[in-house]
């Protein structure tokens, strides 16, 4: 076997390095994409988990109400009085130091006395008298940074820093530095602590806390939970410290949803290798014959072929592993950036390769290659060398086989469709992934017969346009329908990734734009937080801001909105409370068509006002199969409460979905009258700039207020959207490279197989230009057929399995848009890639030595 590998396999590979390289590259790309996604996923998850653990210290429980409202400070004493409980108050918010290179920091307000029982802090220089140090460091407008963060950003002790907080720009002085221990290790060192009082003042949370963290002292966590619940009574949420973040989970789900693309990329690689192995077997038919006559068994030769391509797959996978790791360094900052737009939750300062993922990827790449080699290897072993020598004509006689494969493909596709219908949108994401994968195999099975039909159908047209070169190209396509069909499927796979991605991006973009169009009936929005820091904030201002804003000159109408996140299973959904009468009135004045206006009906208005009913977003409805008329249980300070679902609306405020209530009802049920923002319609003729300036000036004394125009809000939304689709562009690029490699591979094989024919054509008078044109036409037909297939498959995939996959994985659900511009681009890219891929093979074909070619036998 070693001799066979050495003399039969390795020498053959050495003679055809380009083919081996193309095979390895196609596997490498699929593996790279998988490894990049897996590594980014692992790195973000690991960084988040580490930060959570570092921040938690010994704490095991957390006491909250609903996030955003905060816990009344009075509850702290009750929890501290519970026997077996060590409790500490926490305020945790993101702040930004605009002047620094790495501006975002998680600021934690703590009562150092109680917090030191839960978490280990170590300060720079190990102060001889900690009490004195704490008294000096934890003062109003003071902050203690980590030493690592300070060094990274060139900050020194006693330095004053401008900080953008939810209450505007504040100046904070650095009163100390923390060594790398406990919470200081979290978030890559982007952590700061300050006194509880300073944090309450800084974030406008006088008398309130974000949460109380509790550690058991000599009792079990379950026992502790019971005791704390009993001590606090109703209205509090006592649960194990959250190890999950909706923002992180959603970002990871989005990343994982890209696995579908890497699976398709691997299948495309499989097709490319299949073609390469087929030709390498045909080329060596004489050698196989000789080896067989010298006593080599069929099995030995088959094993050698499989090992040979398994080795290529392994080497390609290893290269893909390295490439994927590099690619993940591009993905990680973008994915974690998208997380932090929701909430500052993760800081990845180390990209961690998941060894299990790496092993899976290398195994998948190697086995894919070996599997791709298996079938042509088996076919070669089961046919006599003479039969293989006559393969050009042999394949014509396989027409019934192609028809059978076509019917099998149609059957598989139908089975996929039936499964999708029967699954009724509840299929597991991996079942959807499997359906997508099988659909590609089914298309590949249909490929040869479709190629025959395509060649027959296009031959007259090609003759008319390109004369003899065109019909020769069509004949060559039909000559090897299996190879052509697989290449069309491979290129179609690449284009389908492009079209599906573009379609999903366009759908999401169009839906978001449409939603922003109807969701913003106002001219100006007053926000309690700086949207450049985070898209979502839990900060709030009082109702006095709403009342005062209505009196500002130039303001015609205003309504208030409170948005908070509430628990939903392990994760969170967004609850949005709106002053409904004013909201509907503003929409009427704005002339909004559709969307929220459809809800402006007496029965819905009264059900919302009474607090009996809610409106849910379409993505939540789709994700959890909620329909109007259903009942929905939401967490309230008084415990779970059932609401009737009145209607569903298109809303993209929060990835897992939103529930909309009337703010008057919200105030009664959630005991919260604060506002997250106030939306304002300007009076006719009012100057927008001046009115915004007046709003900022006249309301600034009430609270920290950020004033945004609608275009500014839309820009923030688009910025977030761009962050998400940056990942998609990487997939599209890789997909196109894979498709390109597929065509180059096929054409090189085609030229190789046609060496004799090309020589003959040259001998009887075909010019080099005619030969070149024939190869280019063939390539463009493959590319265009692949593009057409890709457009159809991409749209079908985006419309169904991939959209469902994304819904199940990431919670996004939106009406599908056909990306005409991108389809045009895909077709143009197909033609350009087809021509580009043909250049080297066409050159090779036209430069064939005629004598060498016709004496090839």
């Amino acid at each position, binding site marked *: 076997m070693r001799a066979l590998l050495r003399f039969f396999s390795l020498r053959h590979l050495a003679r055809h390095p380009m083919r081996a390289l193309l095979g390895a590259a196609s596997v490498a790309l699929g593996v790279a994409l998988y490894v990049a996604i897996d590594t980014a996923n692992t790195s973000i998850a690991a960084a988040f988990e580490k930060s959570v653990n570092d921040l938690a210290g010994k704490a095991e429980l957390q006491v909250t109400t609903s996030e955003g409202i905060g816990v009344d400070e009075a509850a702290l004493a009750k929890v501290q009085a519970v026997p077996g409980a060590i409790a500490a108050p926490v305020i945790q918010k993101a702040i930004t130091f605009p002047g620094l290179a790495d501006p975002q920091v998680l600021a934690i307000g703590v009562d150092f006395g109680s917090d030191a029982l839960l978490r280990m802090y170590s300060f720079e220089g190990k102060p001889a008298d900690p009490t004195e140090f704490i008294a000096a460091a934890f003062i109003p407008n003071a902050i203690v940074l980590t030493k690592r963060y300070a060094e990274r950003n060139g900050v020194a002790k006693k330095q004053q820093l401008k900080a953008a907080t939810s209450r505007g720009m504040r100046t904070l002085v650095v009163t100390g530095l923390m060594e790398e221990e406990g919470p200081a290790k979290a978030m890559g060192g982007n952590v700061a602590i300050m006194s509880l009082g300073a944090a309450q003042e800084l974030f406008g949370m006088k008398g309130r806390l974000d949460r109380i963290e509790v550690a058991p002292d000599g009792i079990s966590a379950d026992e502790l939970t019971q005791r704390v619940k009993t001590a606090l009574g109703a209205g509090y949420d006592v649960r194990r410290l959250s190890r999950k973040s909706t923002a992180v989970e959603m970002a990871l789900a989005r990343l994982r949803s890209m696995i579908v693309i890497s699976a398709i990329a691997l299948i495309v690689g499989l097709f490319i290798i299949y073609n390469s192995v087929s030709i390498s077997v045909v080329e060596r038919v004489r050698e196989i014959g000789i080896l067989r006559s010298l006593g080599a068994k069929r099995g030995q030769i088959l094993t050698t072929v499989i090992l040979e391509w398994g080795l290529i797959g392994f080497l390609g996978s290893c290269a893909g592993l390295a490439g994927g790791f590099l690619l993940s360094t591009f993905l990680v900052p973008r994915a974690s950036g998208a997380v932090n737009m929701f909430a500052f939750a993760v800081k990845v300062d180390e990209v961690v390769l998941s060894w299990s993922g790496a092993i899976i990827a290398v195994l998948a790449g190697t086995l894919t290659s070996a599997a791709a080699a298996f079938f042509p290897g088996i076919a070669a072993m089961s046919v006599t060398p003479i039969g293989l020598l006559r393969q050009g004509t042999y394949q014509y006689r396989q027409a019934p086989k192609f028809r059978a494969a076509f019917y099998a493909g149609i059957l598989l596709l139908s089975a996929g469709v039936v499964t999708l219908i029967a699954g009724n949108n509840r299929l597991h994401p991996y079942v959807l992934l499997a359906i997508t994968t099988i659909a590609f195999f089914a298309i590949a099975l249909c490929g040869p017969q479709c190629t025959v039909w395509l060649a027959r159908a296009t031959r007259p047209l090609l003759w008319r346009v390109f*004369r003899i070169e065109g019909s020769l190209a069509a004949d060559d396509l039909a000559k090897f329908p299996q190879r052509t069909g697989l290449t069309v499927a491979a290129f179609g796979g690449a284009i389908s990734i492009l079209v599906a991605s573009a379609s999903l991006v366009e759908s999401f973009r169009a839906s978001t734009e449409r939603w922003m169009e109807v969701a913003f009936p106002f001219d100006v929005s007053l926000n309690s937080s700086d949207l450049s820091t985070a898209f979502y904030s839990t900060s709030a201002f009082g109702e006095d801001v709403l009342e005062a804003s209505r009196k500002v000159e130039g303001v015609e109408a205003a309504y208030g909105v409170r948005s908070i996140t509430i628990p939903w299973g392990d994760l969170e959904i967004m609850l949005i409370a709106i002053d409904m009468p004013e909201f509907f009135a503003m929409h009427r004045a704005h002339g909004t068509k559709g969307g929220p206006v459809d809800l402006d009906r007496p029965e819905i208005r009264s059900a919302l006002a009474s607090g009996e009913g809610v409106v849910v977003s379409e993505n939540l409805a789709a994700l959890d199969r909620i329909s109007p008329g259903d009942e929905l249980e939401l967490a309230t300070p008084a415990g779970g409460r059932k609401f009737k679902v009145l209607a569903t609306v298109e809303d993209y405020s929060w990835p897992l979905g939103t529930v909309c209530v009337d703010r008057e009802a919200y105030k009664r049920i959630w005991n919260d009258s604060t506002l997250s923002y106030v939306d304002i319609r300007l009076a006719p003729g009012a100057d927008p700039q001046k009115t915004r300036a007046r709003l900022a000036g006249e309301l600034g004394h009430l609270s920290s207020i950020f004033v945004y125009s609608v275009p500014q809000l839309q820009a923030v939304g688009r910025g977030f959207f761009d962050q998400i689709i940056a990942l998609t562009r990487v997939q599209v690029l890789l997909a196109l490279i894979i498709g390109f490699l597929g065509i180059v591979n096929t054409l090189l094989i085609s030229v190789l197989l046609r060496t*004799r*024919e090309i020589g003959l054509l040259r001998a009887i*008078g075909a*010019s080099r230009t005619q030969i070149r044109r024939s190869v280019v036409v063939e390539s463009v037909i493959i590319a265009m057929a692949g593009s057409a297939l890709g457009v159809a498959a991409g749209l079908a995939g985006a419309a169904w399995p991939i959209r469902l996959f994304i819904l199940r994985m990431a919670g996004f659900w939106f009406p599908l848009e056909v990306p005409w511009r991108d389809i045009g681009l895909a077709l143009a890219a197909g033609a350009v890639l087809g021509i580009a891929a043909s250049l080297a093979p066409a050159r090779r074909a036209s430069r064939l030595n005629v004598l060498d070619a016709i004496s090839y036998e």
Partner: protein
Amino acid sequence: MIRFDDVRKIYTQGTREVRALDGLTLHVPRGEFLAVMGPSGSGKSTFLHLSGGLDLPTSGGVTVDGQSTATLGDDGLTLLRRRKIGFVFQFFNLMPTLRVVENIALPLLLDGNGNGAAVPKAEALLERVGLTSRRDHFPDELSGGEMQRVAIARALVIDPALVLADEPTGNLDSATGRGILELLKEVSEKEGRTIVMVTHDEAAAKWAKRIARLRDGKLDA
């Protein structure tokens, strides 16, 4: 029709030089049926390739129909082959993807003719070689003799001044071979075309008007 003046053709095989033709001088007048014989390595095929403009001499002059092949360049040689030379190969070399009639019409199609001009001419030749019933068959559905008839028809479709045949009967049984040789002789005698046929077979060579014997790249006196 063909003039070889002191033609040398030297190939390099590894570090070794092989003199395929070594100062060959030979004239083939228009309308002659010449058989070229000689043992393996004598230079027969090289002579044929140089005559067909498929290769160029290392030194000396090759003139075909009054044109020096050395001065024609690739495009000129392509046109020479396309319009003036018909090739018949030992292994037939038909395009497997084309039907019989298309194979015959191929040289005309390559020259830019439409089906309207090329197909009737191909059909006429098909009738002449007795294969009208095989018009729409693919090459792999024909016997060896039939394939060679198609190859001859293809060679004749351009009305060539010169037909170069490389072992045209080498792959056929003797009865079928005889039919092919009759056809070539008829083409030479009735149509006045120059035929150069390379062969190993003495019996086949006797069909020619003249036999040139090569040995070690030279005419064997």
